[in-house]
């Protein structure tokens, strides 16, 4: 393929957007381009959500030694359409004691907030709806709004399971928001910018065939690991799915939702997972960059969605593997383990920067600073884990009501 064709393929959606917008009078062109971008987000990500539900059910089925959905369409891949029709035609039940307005608004606020988060996510070269200076801050600010909608859902249902689920969810999301933000800060600190596009740009370029992704540095790896754990908790995914622990709380904060409102919660949860995975990719995995220099001919958007697909598979794999935590384990983990490590990681990232200036750019200097930073982080990880484990009183568990 010649370079021109590669660029065209890379920018195909951008070119398409310009062509369609060009059909309108000049006054409306920015508006039309914006609407096309929004339509793209609204069409693509729920589409991925539909595929993810099949993938998750089939994947979990495999892990649990069963088949999963296989009746609707080839290999059960039309299952989401059947599910969508089902949830659209189901009766929408609102409890008589529920607070009707808040009960109605909760899923709307959730889905709107989560869709807004996609506005600043770069999904390819020049493919970002809103290229603002403080993009990462925007994402975290909008993510904080989702907590409020979960509280609204739980409180307005007037159901103790809903309220307990909502309280758990909010407490968990607030606790893990701290390490989530702090672990993202290292990438922002090293780039010197809050704009997602600039962060991706800073990770482009190659040494030999290997890319300059932040995950390949000690602080980047630690930050990425902390970010993934906090992201799992933030999106209420297993093993942090206590807010909807079905063995204890029916379905948590959306127990009293049925029909399409329930589907909206479901959609919100998966879209939230995908957007946070997208930001993890942007911050640490080079965004839409290719993993090897000789693979750069593949379009940037293909790389982004490929990485997103891998992230989704990873989340499904974890859900099939790990058991649910207990409430006290959850809180201890956030405040006693994640928080100190993410604070330490900030210090390590800063010293990485100054060690680089001090040791120079030679190969030995690079190796020394890599090993030094990795050693500090590894030592802290091992020591902290040991101390926390020793404090735990591990004994046979007594079951109060089962004996």
């Amino acid at each position, binding site marked *: 393929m010649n370079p021109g064709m590669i660029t065209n393929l890379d920018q195909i959606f951008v070119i398409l957007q310009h062509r369609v917008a060009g059909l309108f009078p000049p006054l409306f062109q920015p508006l039309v381009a914006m609407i096309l971008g929004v339509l793209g987000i609204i069409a693509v990500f729920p589409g991925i959500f539909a595929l993810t539900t099949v993938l998750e059910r089939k994947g979990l089925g495999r892990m649990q030694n069963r088949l999963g959905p296989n009746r609707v369409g080839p290999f059960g891949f039309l299952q989401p359409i059947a599910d969508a029709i089902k949830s659209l035609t189901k009766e929408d039940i609102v409890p008589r004691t529920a*607070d009707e307005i*808040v009960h109605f608004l909760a899923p709307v606020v959730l889905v709107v907030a989560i869709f807004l988060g996609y506005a600043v996510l770069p999904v390819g070269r020049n493919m970002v709806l809103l290229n*603002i*200076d*403080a993009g990462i*801050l*925007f994402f*975290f*600010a*909008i*993510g*904080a*709004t989702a*907590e*409020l909608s979960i*509280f*609204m859902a739980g*409180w307005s249902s007037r159901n103790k399971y809903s*309220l307990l689920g909502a*309280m758990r969810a*909010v407490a968990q999301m*607030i606790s893990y*928001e701290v390490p989530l933000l702090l672990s993202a800060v290292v990438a922002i600190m090293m780039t*010197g*910018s*809050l704009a997602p596009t600039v962060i991706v740009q800073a990770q482009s370029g190659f040494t030999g065939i290997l890319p300059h992704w932040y995950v390949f540095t000690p602080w980047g790896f630690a930050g990425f690991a902390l970010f993934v754990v906090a992201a799992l908790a933030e999106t209420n995914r297993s093993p942090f799915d206590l807010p909807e622990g079905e063995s204890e709380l029916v379905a948590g904060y959306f127990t009293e939702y049925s029909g399409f409102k329930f589907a909206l919660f479901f959609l919100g949860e998966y879209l939230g997972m995908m957007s946070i995975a997208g930001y993890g990719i942007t911050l640490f995995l080079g965004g839409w960059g290719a993993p090897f220099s000789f693979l750069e001919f593949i379009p940037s958007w293909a790389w982004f969605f490929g990485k997103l697909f891998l992230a989704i598979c990873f989340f499904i794999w974890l859900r099939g593997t790990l058991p649910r935590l207990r409430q006290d384990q959850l809180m201890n983990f956030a405040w006693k383990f994640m928080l100190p490590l993410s604070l330490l990681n900030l210090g390590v990232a800063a010293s990485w920067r100054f060690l680089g200036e001090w040791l120079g750019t030679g190969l030995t200097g690079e190796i020394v600073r890599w090993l030094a930073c990795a050693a500090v982080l590894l030592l802290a990880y091992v020591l902290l884990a040991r101390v926390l484990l020793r404090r735990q009183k591990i004994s046979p568990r007594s079951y109060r009501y089962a004996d």
Partner: protein
Amino acid sequence: MSPAMIEGFLFGLIAVMTLAGALAAALLRNLVHCALSLTVTFAGLAVLYLSLGAQFVGLSQILVYIGAVAILVVFAILLTHGAGALPHLFVASSGWRTGWVAAVVVAFVFIGALLRSPLPQSSGPVPQIAVRSIGQALMGAYVLPLEIVAILLTVALIGAVIVAMPTEQGESK
């Protein structure tokens, strides 16, 4: 419609939303509804900041006020059993009269100050403040206030942990 007209219309819409939220927060009888209306006000303020081009302030407003303060308020309401609707009672108190007088006086002072202050003549385009320059100002010229606030918050955090710590076995008896 010219862009200025659209801007004016949007400003009016956001202003009405902000004021309605504030009024509802003061007048509704259900405390959780009040807290949620207050959130609408916070959001309206954030959008106003954003429409003025103050990205950092607007987004921090959302992050801090909606993400933390609103949640704190609803948690406090739930934990103090104030979540149910209050009965429709008119609370008779001699404080009402004083309250009205104070409200009218304060309103007059504010309106007077507003009317007397001259509108700043806009000179040229609004300066675009990048987030980077805010960061540099915080780490440079304003580093001392920043550190003092940080110490204050740390003290508050430690205080909260001490309050929440389980009391000693001997003390509880």
